[in-house]
């Protein structure tokens, strides 16, 4: 705590403009910011290579570690999806893909992409890197636990990958792991495979909890002077709400994993009804498989928003910066994020319309599900209104943002179809569902991740990514993803069931053969296009154009560090002091087209800024 503020014995008061202009006596100075409340953070300074780059306590390095590990699992998931598509488009072309292997690919692809790739990338990767920088902290509040969080995640990934190499292979129960079939001999990988999967998930939850505690506490209790909650970038709001959801949803996953592990290892019957297997009565009896579904989806539905909310937040910031315009309806955006987060805990059973629930239950969950469309639609309108008559820079980042909006609207509309019980029942377990969730929580968040990487790479690496390769990457990915998932809606309507290893010669499937081949070719191309992206990253690290400070002319604190890329401690001698929100672009009366968050009001006295 620096001594210079000690004389300033003013009472606490809110930092918002409403009270600033009020009667309190200490606001005559328009640049006034409340004195520091918190002592200077007691940082751990590493002295060896190992503590600096491996067991590192700096959130930025941890963020990059999370990012790289998540991308590695993502590539595994991508290769698995290629293998699945090869089988679906050209059955029996690859003799190595048997029905058992196909189910294992389905399961591992789903689990890897949802949990180990998207969740870890958004919260572990972007969360760690951006939270301290964007709220103006030197690091997370508890760096040691943050480090352990990453290594726990790393062990979880190792355990998951180990399941490819155990006898019987990884589990093939589908990513939802529904009992009883998940742990009975009929399913591939019902021995070691499922045990390793459940262990890995439990480790992931424990590791994530450690990180999540850090994210929440850093955002709520360690912001810099002048950084009110309503001046935080929407990225932080998205990550914050998603982490809060994760802290409350992952417990259900942990509990269901523990119970199913016991069902498998100790032959308890939490989820196992009386079962006759090949004429033999098993020792199980009296358990409830539907209980697992409730626990799983109590985790599983918030999980969708754990992935989506950071994407919403990040894309809002990207659009605002690259359209040079303030985000339309900032407060509405914040409340929409929080509202979606709250509602997401009351919709889980819309995944279970065909599980044999009481119909009134389905009615209730259909209602809550459709209510969630309201805040989501508000966000889409706000993005579009932000773009309206804006000074749009058509660079790669903006292309990915536009791609996100289009895909998200598309996936959201099919969600309204599926949210209604009567429409869902015929569409359940068809390719329509696959198309829906890949659009809305696969491609849409991925578009944001790509955009975010193009946006923040100059900060992390100090060099720009190649725009030319970036545009190729975008167009192949965007058009290719549409070629994959748009036809799948049609496949769903004609009744092609999901998770089937092969459609064989069923007569009504004849029209689907050509389409399946087309989708497979598109999937191979889109997957290959991601290697353009990786190539772009690797070469740009060495030969990319030096970025310099604040290449996008953004306002938020991460671009205002003393050095670029930011070093240990983030902000040099003094922490920044914040005077405004991060969206003051093209303000009438200001000289430049952007006013950074640290610019005091006296420097832009004629600018008609928003009061924040």
């Amino acid at each position, binding site marked *: 705590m620096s001594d210079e*503020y000690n*004389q300033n*014995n*003013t*009472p*606490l*008061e*809110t*930092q*918002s403009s409403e*009270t600033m202009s009020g009667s309190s006596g200490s606001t005559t100075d328009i640049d006034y*910011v*409340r*004195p*520091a*409340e*918190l002592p200077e953070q*007691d940082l751990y300074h590493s002295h060896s290579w190992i503590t600096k780059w491996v067991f590192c306590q700096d959130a930025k390095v941890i963020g990059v570690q999370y990012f790289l590990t998540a991308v590695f699992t993502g590539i595994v998931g991508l290769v698995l999806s290629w293998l699945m598509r090869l089988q679906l488009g050209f059955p029996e072309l690859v003799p190595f893909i048997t029905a058992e292997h196909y189910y294992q690919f389905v399961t591992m692809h789903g689990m890897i992409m949802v949990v180990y790739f998207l969740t870890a990338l958004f919260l572990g990767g972007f969360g760690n890197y951006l939270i301290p920088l964007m709220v103006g902290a030197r690091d997370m*509040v*508890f760096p*040691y636990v943050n480090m352990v969080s990453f290594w726990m995640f790393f062990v979880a990934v190792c355990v998951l990958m180990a399941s490819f190499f155990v006898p019987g292979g990884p589990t093939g129960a589908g990513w939802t792991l529904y009992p009883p079939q998940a742990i009975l001999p009929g399913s591939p990988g019902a021995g070691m495979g499922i045990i390793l999967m459940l262990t890995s998930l439990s480790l992931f939850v424990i590791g994530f*909890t450690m990180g*999540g*505690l850090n994210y*929440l*506490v850093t955002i*709520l*209790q*360690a*912001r*810099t*002077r*002048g*950084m*009110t*909650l*309503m*001046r935080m970038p929407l990225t932080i709001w998205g990550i914050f709400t998603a982490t809060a959801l994760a*802290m*409350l949803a*992952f*417990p*259900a996953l*942990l*509990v*269901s994993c*523990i119970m199913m592990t*016991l069902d498998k290892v*100790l*032959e*308890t*019957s*939490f989820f196992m009804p009386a079962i006759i297997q090949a004429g033999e009565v098993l*020792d199980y*009896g*009296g358990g*409830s498989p539907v*209980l697992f579904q409730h*626990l799983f989806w109590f985790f599983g539905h918030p999980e969708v928003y754990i992935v989506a909310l950071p994407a919403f937040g990040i894309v809002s910031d990207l659009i605002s910066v690259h359209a040079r315009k303030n985000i339309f309806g900032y407060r509405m955006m914040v409340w929409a994020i929080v509202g979606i987060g709250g509602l997401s805990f009351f919709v889980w059973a819309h995944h279970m319309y065909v599980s044999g629930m009481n119909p009134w239950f389905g009615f209730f969950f259909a209602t809550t599900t459709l209510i969630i469309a309201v805040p989501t639609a508000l966000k889409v309108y706000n993005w579009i209104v932000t773009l309206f008559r804006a000074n749009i820079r058509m660079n790669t980042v903006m292309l990915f943002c536009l791609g996100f909006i289009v895909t998200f609207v598309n996936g959201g509309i099919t969600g309204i179809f599926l949210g209604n019980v009567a429409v869902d029942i015929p569409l359940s377990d068809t390719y329509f569902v696959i198309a829906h969730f890949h659009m809305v929580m696969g491609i849409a968040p991925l578009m944001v991740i790509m955009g975010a990487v193009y946006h923040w790479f100059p900060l992390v690496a100090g060099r720009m990514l190649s725009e030319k390769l970036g545009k190729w990457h975008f167009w192949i990915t965007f058009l290719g993803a549409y070629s994959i998932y748009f036809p799948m809606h049609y496949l769903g309507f004609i009744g092609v069931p999901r998770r089937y290893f092969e459609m064989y010669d069923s007569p009504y499937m004849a029209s689907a053969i050509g389409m399946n081949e087309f989708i497979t070719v598109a999937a191979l191309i889109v997957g290959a296009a991601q290697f353009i992206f990786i190539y772009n990253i690797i070469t740009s690290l060495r030969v990319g154009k030096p970025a310099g400070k604040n290449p996008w002319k953004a306002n938020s604190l991460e671009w205002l560090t003393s050095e670029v890329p930011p070093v240990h401690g983030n902000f040099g001698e003094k922490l920044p002091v*914040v005077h405004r929100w991060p969206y003051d672009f093209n303000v009438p009366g200001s000289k430049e087209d952007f006013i950074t968050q640290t610019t005091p009001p006296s420097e832009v006295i004629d600018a008609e800024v928003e009061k924040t």
Partner: protein
Amino acid sequence: MSDNNLNNLPGGFKGMAQDMGSDQTAFKGVQWGKFMMWIFLLSDTFVFSCFLISYMKGRSSTVVDWPNTSEVFSLHVGGVPVPLLLIAIMTFVLITSSGTMALAVKYGYEKNKKMCAWLVLATAIGGLTFVGMQVFEWSKLIHEGVRPWENPFGAKQFGSFFFMITGFHGVHVSIGVIFLFIFARKTFRGDFDTGKRGFFTSQKSDYVAIEILGLYWHFVDLVWVFIFAFFYLW
């Protein structure tokens, strides 16, 4: 930092709104570690809620009768079965240890090193006694033939849920006991007075750590009250 006048904050809803609208911290004067423990406990509440709700579901939908808990959990004293005797003692010990913990926090903030250390040690011993009695109870039930996968007295889910939930709670207590012993040693050594840096975390020790550990300990006690009510009294 002390000049920030944290004692004169406005109260009530208006004060809360003002704190939320302010910069730096949303919860004024709350040390980050304490706040972190509260969030962890909220998350842990969800874990135990999921366990207990699963238990309720399992118990209410089982096809075989649930065993009579006052018989299963009774101790024979001089040939007379006394229902819930052991559990009553266990509960008493655990709640008492919460009391000593609360006193330890009080003496910690008064920087009364000696009293604080002894009370933390007393809490640790109380917790250890609880775990010991739980081991006794488990071995008694196992001796009578109750297993996670079978139960001679009725529905087999009884054994499954009992061992899983009391086991999960017991792990919490055991972790708490380990930390209590470590903290007792740290207090005796005077780490919290000298601000010695932690071995792993390399953060300065502070008496607030006693309160954080206390929060965890009270939570574990509170969870036990629910387990007690749902398992033994239902």
